[in-house]
């Protein structure tokens, strides 16, 4: 039985490839407000009569709502089928699963490529700068639309983990459990630095045109590809790269004494860059990386992370990976210590993996066991 046919409800709000235009206004951290607000999303499973089995999955920077269904552009399976699906820890047989494209992105939710109702033209760089909290507010609006009053859990890795952490601070009564994987409570100088490299690569591409490239039918794909290549390195580990590529040459016997992709790792990165531009908008990349850089959970609480959690009532679970140098284990420990200081219930484990930050997207039996145990304990 496919997931489509598993959905008994004929309610048009539920199912795959849904989208909704909400009137808003959505008041943003910047002071601006957004109206209307488009949100593209998917739901899997059925909301039970008590409304108690809803799980919101938050995606990462370049992720999307296709968490467990085929991506419409790339044709690839959902990005987290290892954890979401029948018999998996997040299971449509038991849970009502919601995954929405984040605000600012480019797969159907309002972002810089959306039409500005004031001008009838794409917003481009006139789209307001958004924050992680704004993304969460948009998700809360979606849940109102779906009739979900309280989440059994909010789950996310990387930037999704940031949203998951913000959730109970904004809506303490709307979430019972928070699961944060390979994430952080604030963007570090190093994190911001890598993002700035990516943004500058995009803005240095002459085809960027100050963001107004939509009408031209052309886009700053070279800049966006470079941004993706630089970022992709941070998602892997040195050990992982060495194991996969080492110094192996790409389909050739010897070095060419030129600047073609002699090394496999170069070829791999170029491929990552090229395939990324087919599915992602350069301006969205600017806006979402900015949102991540502005993210500092303690900032609005006099710099005290414990205070940020003082009103929360959810249970927390954090998972980090030992080779993740983008959001290393120390970042998760900071969160754990703050939760202890705030007297919250928290589980935490650092799992071993050779794959760096991306480990959470790959096969990780221990991660699945932890997710399953944590979610069941919170049911």
């Amino acid at each position, binding site marked *: 039985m496919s997931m489509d046919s598993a959905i008994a409800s004929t309610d048009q709000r539920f199912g795959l490839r849904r989208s909704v235009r909400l009137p808003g206004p959505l008041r943003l951290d910047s002071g601006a407000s957004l109206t209307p607000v488009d949100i593209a999303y998917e739901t899997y499973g059925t909301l039970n009569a008590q409304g108690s089995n809803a799980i919101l999955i938050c995606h990462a920077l370049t992720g999307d709502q296709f968490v467990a269904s085929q991506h419409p552009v790339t044709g690839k399976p959902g990005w987290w089928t290892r954890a979401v699906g029948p018999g998996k820890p997040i299971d449509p047989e038991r849970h009502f699963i919601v995954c929405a494209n984040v605000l600012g992105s480019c797969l159907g939710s309002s972002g810089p490529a959306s039409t500005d109702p004031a001008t009838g033209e794409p917003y481009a760089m006139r789209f307001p700068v958004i924050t992680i909290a704004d993304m969460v507010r948009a998700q809360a609006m979606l849940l109102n639309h779906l009739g979900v009053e309280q989440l059994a859990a909010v789950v996310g890795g990387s930037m999704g983990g940031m949203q998951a952490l913000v959730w109970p601070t904004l809506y303490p009564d709307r979430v019972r459990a928070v699961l944060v994987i390979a994430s952080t409570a604030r963007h570090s100088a190093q994190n911001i630095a890598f993002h700035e490299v990516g943004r500058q690569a995009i803005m240095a591409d002459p085809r960027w045109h100050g963001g107004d490239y939509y009408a031209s039918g052309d886009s700053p794909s070279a800049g966006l590809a470079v941004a993706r290549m630089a970022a992709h390195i941070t998602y892997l580990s040195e050990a992982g790269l060495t194991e996969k590529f080492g110094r192996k040459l790409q389909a050739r016997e010897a070095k060419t004494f030129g600047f073609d992709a002699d090394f496999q790792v170069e070829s791999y990165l170029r491929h990552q860059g090229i395939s990324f531009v087919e599915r992602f908008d350069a301006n969205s990349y600017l806006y979402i990386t900015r949102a991540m850089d502005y993210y500092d959970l303690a900032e609005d609480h006099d710099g005290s992370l414990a205070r940020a959690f003082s009103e929360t009532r959810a249970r927390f679970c954090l998972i980090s990976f030992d080779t993740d140098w983008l959001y290393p284990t120390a970042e998760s420990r900071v969160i754990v210590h703050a939760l202890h200081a705030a*007297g919250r219930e928290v589980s935490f484990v650092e799992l071993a993996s050779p794959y760096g930050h991306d480990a959470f997207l790959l096969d990780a039996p221990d991660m699945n066991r932890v997710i399953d145990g944590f979610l069941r*304990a919170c049911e």
Partner: protein
Amino acid sequence: MSLLRPDLAVIADHIPDGARVLDVGCGDGALLSDIRLRKHADVRGLEIDPANVAAAVGRGLPVVQGDADTDLGYYPDKSFDFAILSQTLQTTRRPDKVVEELLRIGKQAFVSFPNFAHWRGRLSLLWGGRMPVTRLLPERWYDTPNIHHLTIDDFRALVRERGWTIDAQWFLNDERTTGSANANLFAEHAVFLLHA
């Protein structure tokens, strides 16, 4: 639930209903799981080994991966009715500081440890001239996690020196409790309940 290790069974039996409990070095969560079920305790765990943490969280327990030597400082004062340190004291770098932290975090603390002055160990050292390898201390001197071996009298001396108070004590031999007379010679294990 009599499958608990004997020292854990003693501790579990003396946890009152509904207590808030932190188990430092909780392993796979056997004790926490037991007292959550039987005593409706509000439990938390700290454990250094990731596989154990994954197992404990996998059974639904709130357990954090961390090190008793470095991570106890983040728990607020008197945030638990009981802090438990079972067979972990001898593996810490600074056992005295760890107990001090336990007594700060918990209103009371259970501390259990293998007694290095048990007669079998003494004989092994006296007649064999070798560090004891016994049923309860099965590792050899070079691969043992026990870096601070102690005796029951050593622990009592530490308690006296720091001005802590012993509220109860149990001594175990061959998985049974034994009297406190000559415990330092005849008990394989000790469990102390104390407060600051």
